[in-house]
């Protein structure tokens, strides 16, 4: 009884989560522009989407900004985490509190404050300001992912490496980095994700030439709507699904390998 109830509940929640997406996907094949009446099957909207210059260039911009911002914030964030780790307690808590601000602050305040900053400096809104803004809200996520790993790391390993003759820099790269690598990778992925999907901050810091995909979608929804949006969401859904499936398969394989190794050890 309990199990059935929980199963039904799970089903309802997943239905709630996926119903709108599935409806969008179905109507991306609709022949007419109607969003509620399905008249016929067609791939037209997909063709039109691929010819839509605005969307294609927006997609390019989004990917470019996400890649640059996530790499830059990973580098800056990792260096920062190491530096913060070595600080005295008071300074560390001050810096960490300020680091929290972009995370806890509502995005609209971050966006508005950055827009005011760029206006104040006199920097024209464009790709540069967009990247700067994205790095600003991505770095805290990297720091928050690397710090716990630094704390878990055994500091004596680093000292041991130096005792065995490594220069501090070499010891750093050979000992510390591999230990905190999982944190760095998670931080990088988080930064990439947040940058890819960001709308609010980009809305305030982008110029006419550097529209990102969410902003292009927003302008599309404000006008006469075209099922190209449906086609776009279908494609995004499939892309995300593939990525998550790949990640899952890779994890499953690693898990299998680890459990096989364990079996081997116990023999």
């Amino acid at each position, binding site marked *: 009884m309990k199990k059935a109830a*929980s199963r039904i509940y799970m089903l309802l929640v997943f239905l709630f989560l996926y119903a709108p997406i599935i409806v969008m996907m179905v109507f991306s094949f609709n022949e007419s522009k109607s969003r509620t009446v399905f008249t016929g099957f067609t791939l037209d909207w997909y063709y039109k989407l691929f010819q839509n210059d605005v969307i294609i260039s927006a997609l390019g911009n989004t990917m470019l900004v996400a890649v640059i911002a996530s790499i830059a914030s990973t580098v800056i964030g990792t260096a920062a985490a190491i530096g913060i780790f070595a*600080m005295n307690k008071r*300074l560390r808590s001050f810096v960490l509190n*300020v680091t929290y601000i972009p995370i806890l602050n*509502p995005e*609209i305040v971050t966006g*508005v404050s950055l827009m005011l900053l760029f206006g104040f400096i006199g920097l024209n809104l464009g790709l540069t300001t967009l990247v*700067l803004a994205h790095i600003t809200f991505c770095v805290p996520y990297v720091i928050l992912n690397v710090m716990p790993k630094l704390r878990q790391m055994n500091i004596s390993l680093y000292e041991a490496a130096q005792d065995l003759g490594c220069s501090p820099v070499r010891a750093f790269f050979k000992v510390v980095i591999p230990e905190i690598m999982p944190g760095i990778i998670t931080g990088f992925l*988080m930064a990439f994700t947040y940058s890819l999907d960001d709308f609010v901050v980009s809305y305030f810091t982008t110029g006419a030439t550097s529209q990102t995909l969410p902003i292009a979608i927003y302008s599309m929804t404000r006008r006469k709507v075209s099922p190209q949006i449906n086609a776009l*969401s279908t494609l995004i859904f499939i892309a995300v699904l593939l990525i998550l499936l790949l990640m899952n398969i890779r994890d499953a394989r690693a898990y299998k390998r680890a459990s096989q190794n364990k079996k081997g050890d116990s023999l």
Partner: protein
Amino acid sequence: MKAKSPAFPYLVWMAVFIIVPLGLVVYFAVTTETGEFTLDNITHVSQYVSVIISSIWLAALATVICLVVSYPISFVISRAGFSRQKTMLMLVMLPMWMNFLLRTYAWMTLLENNGLINKFFGLFGIGPFDMINTQGAVVLGMVYNYLPFMILPLYSVMTKIDGKVIEAAQDLGANTFHVFSKVVLPLSVPGISTGITMVFVPAVSTFIISRMLGGGGNLLIGDLIELQFLGGSYNPHLGAAMSLVLMVIILLCMSIMNSFDSEQEEAMIL
């Protein structure tokens, strides 16, 4: 603080891109166009108290609904077998990775008067309900968009609750309700507070959901701020004052949250 510290570039960045902009917001909030000091902007904000109250009320509603809906789900997922857990997590996270605007837009199609949900009710002869362009639609949009943000922290905390603790409680004679209220609930409080933070803050400051699903007449404070900067009522000083008020409100809410939970030193971000 030595200049050799690897954190130095970040510290500079932090100062320029986090502290200075906030300082600018405060500066704009307390000055007029000509640059003189004034508290007018902040008192002007008090004209819009009803909007602020609306935002807090709707966001709180959405947060509570998210909490109530996610709690059982997170619990079920955390007790499932390992591979099933992974699959279910993936299914929960998938919508989160889809574009926020597209998901909100999708609801417009469903909720309209001639939309699919009303058509479905029409099959049973139940009249078309007014769903879109209401406050209810805005709450629905908030819940839909932020549900995964509540599920994940709760799940993360619940996996740490050892199954044996629950078994022990049951062995000692606790019924389901007691197991829940005396064992699971207290142990999941860190997850609850993280989840509430991750849902309430974006919900109170959203401006897209209210515009797309609320019909442009149910303004929230995010909409008002956007109007002052890039919308029809250009007044950056008033906008900065509103942002200041918003930040203060959030600070207040966070400190109330923190007082409920004295054990953790750092928020758990996924």
